[in-house]
């Protein structure tokens, strides 16, 4: 949520005011059918609403965090069709017909996901504000390439900042989750 408009000069403020009025005329809401955490939801939202705004402000899924609002930090990472994306850089309306997974959808039937369990085991969090995005970044990487190679795991984390500096434990957690995923995969192939 950039607030740059609030710092402009007075001429820009008049423009902003005029733009807002003009915007009102074309505020027709966009309908979209989005699968969110496994359930199809019909949404009606402004065209400019970002996915993170939809999730947090309209659907109450506040597990997704917004920190920079401009794709610098990765805190708002969610999974769209198996890819990790910054939800501050995606419009909600773009998700029409797509599958969105948030942190709230990772535990199934009260059972935490492999990645979530690994984060707890390695204490890969402190304040926890970047944690949902970190969990989903690792989750997407493990789905993309399993078994995941080590450099790719670190690369997958490189788009997600952690101001508490839990990086060493984040790497540990990603490795643990990758090992467990590989183990589970092998078990399924050779019972």
């Amino acid at each position, binding site marked *: 949520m950039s607030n740059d408009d609030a710092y402009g000069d007075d001429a820009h403020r008049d423009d902003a005011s005029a733009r807002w009025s003009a915007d009102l005329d074309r505020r027709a809401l966009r309908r979209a059918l989005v699968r969110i955490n496994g359930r199809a939801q019909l949404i009606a939202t402004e065209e400019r609403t970002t996915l993170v705004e939809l999730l947090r402000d309209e659907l109450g899924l506040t597990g997704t965090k917004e920190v920079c609002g401009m794709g610098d930090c990765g805190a708002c990472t969610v999974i769209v069709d198996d890819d990790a994306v910054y939800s501050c850089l995606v419009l909600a309306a773009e998700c029409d017909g797509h599958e969105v997974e948030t*942190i709230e959808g990772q535990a199934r039937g009260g059972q935490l996901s492999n990645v979530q369990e690994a*984060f*707890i085991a390695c204490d890969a969090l402190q304040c926890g504000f970047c*944690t949902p995005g970190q969990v989903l970044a690792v989750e997407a990487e493990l789905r993309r390439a399993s078994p995941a190679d080590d450099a790719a795991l670190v690369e997958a984390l490189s788009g997600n900042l952690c101001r508490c500096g839990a*990086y060493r434990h984040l790497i540990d957690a990603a490795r643990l989750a990758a090992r467990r995923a590989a183990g589970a995969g092998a078990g399924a192939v050779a019972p």
Partner: protein
Amino acid sequence: MIDSERLHPRPDERTTPTGMVGAPVPRREAPAKVTGAARYSADVHLPGQLEAAIVRSPHPHARVRSVDVRAALAVPGVVDVLTPADTATVRWYQEGVPLLGSTVRFVGDEVAAVAATSARAARAGAAAVRVDYEPLPHVTDFEAALDPDAPAVHPGGNRTKAPKVQGRGDVDAALATAEVVVERTYRTPTAVHNAFEPHGCVASWSGGELTLHASTQGVNDVRSMIADALGLAHSRVRVIAEHIGGGFGAKQIPWKDVAIAALLSQRCLRPVRCLYDRRGENLAAGKRGATRQRVRLGARRDGTLVAIDAELLGDSGAYRTGGESAALWGPYLSLYRCPAVRTTTTFVYTNTGPAVAFRAPGFVESIFALESAMDELADRVGVDPIELRRRNHTDVDQEAGRPLSSPTALPAAYDRIVEVAGWVPRPLVPPDHTEGAPDRRADPAITREQTVRYGRGFAAHDWVGGGASPPGFADVELHEDGSAEVRTTTQDIGTGTRTLLAQVAAEQLGLDPDEIRIGLGDTAAGPPAPTSSGSATAPTMAPAVRAAAAEARHRLLAAAADRLGCRADELHLSAGEIAAGDGRRCSVAEVLAGIGPEGVRGRGATLGQPDGVTVRTSGAAVADVEVDVATGEVRVTRIVVAPDCGRIINPRLVESQIIGGVAQGIGFALTESQLTDGRLGTVVNASLEDYLVPTVADTCAVHHAVVGVADEAANPLGVKGIGELPMIAVPAAIANAVSDAIGVRITELPITRRRVLDAVALAGRAARSRPQPARPQPAQQQPAQAPADTAQETTERPR
């Protein structure tokens, strides 16, 4: 991977009957944090809630002639606009300026605030507020602010107060007779906390009572300060901080978001949320102010210090925020045994955002300077850097003239770090720069292996915090059904407070930590507790909880003794069962059911500091670096830290604090610096795009050399704080490692590529332009010859 040895080197049977204290118990809120269930202030949404947006000054210094809100109120969704005229009676900062200024003193200073039905409408409304500014002359450089002709940030000059002179002995006489004098000027940058949850608050009123969901490190301080600022009784204000998305010091006081949300909510009769955006967070929510430190060390030929003189200048920003934003003098006065010390500290106002405490405020900065100078002294006198620190160790608080509570901890830290880091004693020998650096751009055949230099550096530190910050109170209650809870008003700012308090209570009550509810982060939750700052939460609250649980245990066993017809001291409490020596037993639940609804309660407190000793913390760090002299790139390959935090309650949580502190230390050493354009007076990197917090790629192997000395003189648990310690010596150790690698001392942080390349080029020119000295042999223990550039500020007196 962190390589923490298995704890605990000294298990104490007396205080760990169940082994709970010292166990790596999982962080209790981790499941809530990995599922998105943990609720932060930024996530609170109450029925009818409005969103606020702040109008910030685009000028570094200006008079606000008028604020026209008509266009803003015409924006659909805007409900109200708060202006300077509405808030003249609410005073802010130590200067007592109005909450919304008639004069603005930095880019980002708050002028007005808009409440609207959505955040988007609030931002549009803020953009539509027309402010008529009369720009005034400004000064943003803290060194230039002392110029007699510099524009005055406040009436009365730019010194926040008269220079503060502290110390002991005759420094000038000691320096005049010192056999070796090392003198140099160091600079550290402005650094920004950039906690990921911004400063923010949701305010709501009900029946004349104000509830604030605030992202804060101190619910009690927010309550008292906001109540006083708004003229409310403290009892009418409740502050809740369930989870806090990072603070690092910047949330140890209330900021304007809290007052703005409270006032708008009062006017609109609806809940209001005021969250700083990332730019506001970078401009107006605190910073570690830049410093200039002119340091002179006088020593004998064997490295024994005879004098320390430090002229310290710090940037306070436009206002003073309260608390200690930078105790720059600290280590000069306390870290080493020295009979003559003088610190002269001046803080100046500038037209920049206000400074506030940031993880070990002042010590991170001054340890960089002092420990760089100590390394230079080691170089000059030809003594191993760690041996030099040992020779200057002190067992006493020289200012107060009394012993330290744990005087063996720092020597133990030296021992442990030598062992874990594999430190090889040495006199420092400057590398040869005669050849200059090969130019990889000119010759692609030159590889990184040919241009990389390896270095290892050491730094020691102490810290004024890590002891208790009394008073702190806690209640423990055992309910009729046998369940137990701890209640207090401390906070868990991501450090694991809940977990360690549960461990301490569980040990006394013979329960599993998971069975104990911990209520905190809410002024209504329990009795008073201090702000989570100064690494004080564990040493204040763990003993208080232990005492409360011990009292509850005592009462429970007394009731059980009545029931069983025996003496209480014959009873053993474990896993919900109370057993007498003769085999008779009953369950805790049975005893409590007999007592009835009043249950069993205990209250514990940390009321003061221990008598006759000074509680301090200390430690050491070793950094390994690779410096590419062709590109200037510095890579940290390993950090070892040995922090003295007393007895460790939970090694897993301590490891987390260590890796985090090390990461922030790497950032302060290499990448972080808020930059201000002096002409425009505006910050040019007020975002996470351009202000470079460390990423996963900037981290390195981190090893914890466990000191493991319980501080029994500090409190009965022997516990001290860890939060700030692992960061303090890291920038200094990295700087010393870079100096070891390239033979040139970098005197200004962060150590950017430009600074490395400039330093290497300067050293090369200096080396080529003078006759070659005979290079000293390490084995001879002779003083190493300093290169010309490092000698330029040093003086050596004839013996």
